[in-house]
């Protein structure tokens, strides 16, 4: 049972982690992107639609990357170049993705919403590591996207903390006018972060349809993008913290699979609501935004 729980935790944490790592880059550059939910949804749909049409999961993943990046490009133009309110712009992006995927889904796969499935991404066993107790299957018999997500944690920690690009990114998020005065190109940095985030959110969406559900239903992202936003806050704008918070939320979602079977008297809705309840509770306890980038969410207009 623990083994199943561990595997489910990793499976549930992966899409959140992918999206949250992208959002981490974006927020360190000073932008808050509520539209991340939309980018995930678009990625999820594009992945399965293209995988269905071509029969190849890889093509689906590529499409998800493209869709996520495209959605974020729209957001980047509106929120960065036009310097409008980021929360409102992000909400519009979510609506756009919900609507687009809904319309296209019906158009391509019929008004009845006939469920369609694809050959899922195979999981890749990492040799003898799989035989480790409890965590063996959970960590080392997973799809490539899981390994990618886990590998990205130290990579993004390094990028933000140590690299030249990361230093510039932080500068853009701390004091954009000063960063621009030094010629660092705030708009460019924010665009790069948003495109990278689009790619990661798209991958998170692809994981949902290609590696986890093997099908698409409307609204399949189910608020995971929003949870990713909370994960960044709970993780204190730090890649390792984000990884830990993602696992916590993954565990909260995974709990329903384990407990629902054993504790039938508890309404299943409680389990479904658990990640959201947990988000509110953790934010209330973790409280403030003292570690947030100073310029987070403030539209920046070049002088």
């Amino acid at each position, binding site marked *: 049972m623990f083994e199943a729980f561990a595997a489910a935790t990793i499976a549930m944490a992966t899409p959140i982690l992918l999206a949250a790592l992208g959002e981490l880059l974006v927020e360190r550059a000073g932008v808050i992107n509520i539209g991340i939910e939309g980018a995930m949804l678009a990625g999820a749909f594009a992945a399965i639609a293209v995988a269905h049409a071509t029969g190849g999961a890889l093509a689906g993943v590529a499409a998800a990357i493209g869709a996520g990046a495209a959605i974020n490009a729209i957001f980047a133009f509106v929120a960065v170049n036009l310097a409008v309110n980021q929360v409102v712009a992000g909400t519009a992006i979510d609506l756009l993705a919900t609507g687009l995927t809904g319309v296209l889904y019906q158009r391509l796969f019929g008004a009845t919403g006939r469920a369609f499935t694809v050959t899922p991404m195979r999981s890749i066993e990492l040799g003898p590591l799989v035989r480790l107790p409890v965590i063996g299957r959970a960590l080392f018999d997973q799809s490539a996207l899981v390994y990618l997500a886990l590998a990205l944690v130290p990579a993004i920690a390094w990028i933000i903390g140590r690299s030249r690009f990361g*230093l510039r990114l932080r500068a853009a998020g701390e004091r954009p006018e000063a960063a*621009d005065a*030094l010629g660092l*190109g705030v708009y460019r940095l924010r665009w790069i972060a948003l495109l990278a985030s689009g790619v990661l959110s798209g991958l998170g969406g692809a994981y949902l349809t290609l590696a986890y559900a093997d099908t698409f239903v409307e609204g399949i992202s189910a608020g995971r993008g929003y949870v990713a936003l909370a994960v960044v806050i709970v993780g204190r704008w730090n890649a390792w913290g984000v990884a830990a918070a993602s696992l916590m939320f993954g565990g909260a979602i995974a709990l329903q699979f384990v407990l629902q079977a054993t504790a039938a008297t508890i309404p299943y809705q409680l389990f479904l609501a658990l990640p959201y309840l947990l988000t509110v509770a953790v934010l209330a306890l973790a409280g403030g935004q003292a570690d947030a980038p100073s310029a987070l969410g403030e539209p920046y207009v070049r002088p």
Partner: protein
Amino acid sequence: MLEARAISRRFGRTLALDRVDFHARPGEIHALIGENGAGKSTLVGIIAGRLAADSGAVLLDGAALRSGASAAALRRARIAAVYQSPMLFERMTWEENLALGGFDAGAAPRELDAVAARARQIAAASGFDLPPPRAIVADRSVAERVRLAIVRALSFEPRVLILDEPTSLLAPAELKIFLAALGRLRAAGRIVVLVTHKLAEARAVADRITVMRRGRVVAELRAADTGEAELARLMIGALPMALARRPPPEPDPAAAPALTLAALTLVREGRRVLDEISLTVRPGEIVGLAGVDGNGQAELVEAIAGAVKLDAGSIAPAPGGAAVAVIPQHRDRDGLVLELPLWENLMLAAPLRARFAPRGLIGCGAARRFCADLLDRFAIRAAAGPACAAGALSGGNRQRLSVARALAGAPRAIVAHDICRGLDLGAAAQVHRGLAEFAAGGGAVLLISTDLDELLECCGRLLVMVRGRVHETADRDPERLGLLMAGAAE
């Protein structure tokens, strides 16, 4: 040779620069002087590539720098600038701040160590000290930040170094070291442009002086050939007549204090920003609080306004009431709501809100009429009258609105922080007259400023604020007061 040719730049309806020509030669310190709002900062912003010009060209050694060229391109052309409030990243270490400059490094420990080593060379050549390794900028003093900003600018090995009023943040003792360092830069063949509105400073350190007034260059002079009187005349145009000094108002010794602070203490991130501050202001007096920016004045004003929660101490009368009016330092950031009309901005003040919204319902007509009357009385020029958005006013008019609002609430005491920043002399005199009349009528004023001249002219008693503490002083000698401000007397 640095040249600016026929530069114009418009902000909304204001023509900030009107076909300005400017020249500075290698191996010279060139002072650019003018009153606040004369266009100095806009001009250097354009030269440094931070702002785009509407027309005109900037040339370095005869080669044109494209108007609106990216800052990166200008950096290649080697023009570096240090701005009025040093553009540092407060929550990063100083090494990271420098790595973002001309050292162009990442943030790995090895890289930061290399940055620090090279920075120490530059700093040593200029006679500067640098903070200890991995110190966070936010924890350093204002003078250290200015030095960091200058070292970062020098890290680009610039041909042209622009210093935009960096000295306004420095105490006199620090200023001397700083001006000496400028001399060394000149000796190294660089073009140094020093923006300032302090005439003595310009005369003391510069070789040549360009004077600006209302968006135009009115003179270019050799520093040796001119005097402060001539510079002042050029800067201001005609000297305002109404500047006759009046004796500072005397308090009524029998009256109870209008404002009493007792052992105010405020701790932020482990530092005592306000450290057991006690002071009283009695009816009829103007008390001056001198100090270099960043020694706790802003927090003190916030505390008196009731905008922060104190760790210890008490304020009488209690904050938030009608008895004390506060005029904050940053009027746009802290004092006005630029999108709202003038009459609503007046209602931001608690006593006026209470007056025009008794029982919570706003009497619009009365509030508008009151506002129109106030605009009239304080000569605030607003095209659309009370319905005009505060953001549509010019800086001077916004400041007068701030002061008028404080006076209109009929408080017992006014706490005014840096109220003449950005005002020309005439407007400043008007503001001072308003305060003097208020004191003459029995009001109490606490005037907080970095400008000693202003305080010496307006105030009776003088206090000095250093690192969150307040000392009273009977000394009125600017030199010794300057030392006190720098904390040398401790």
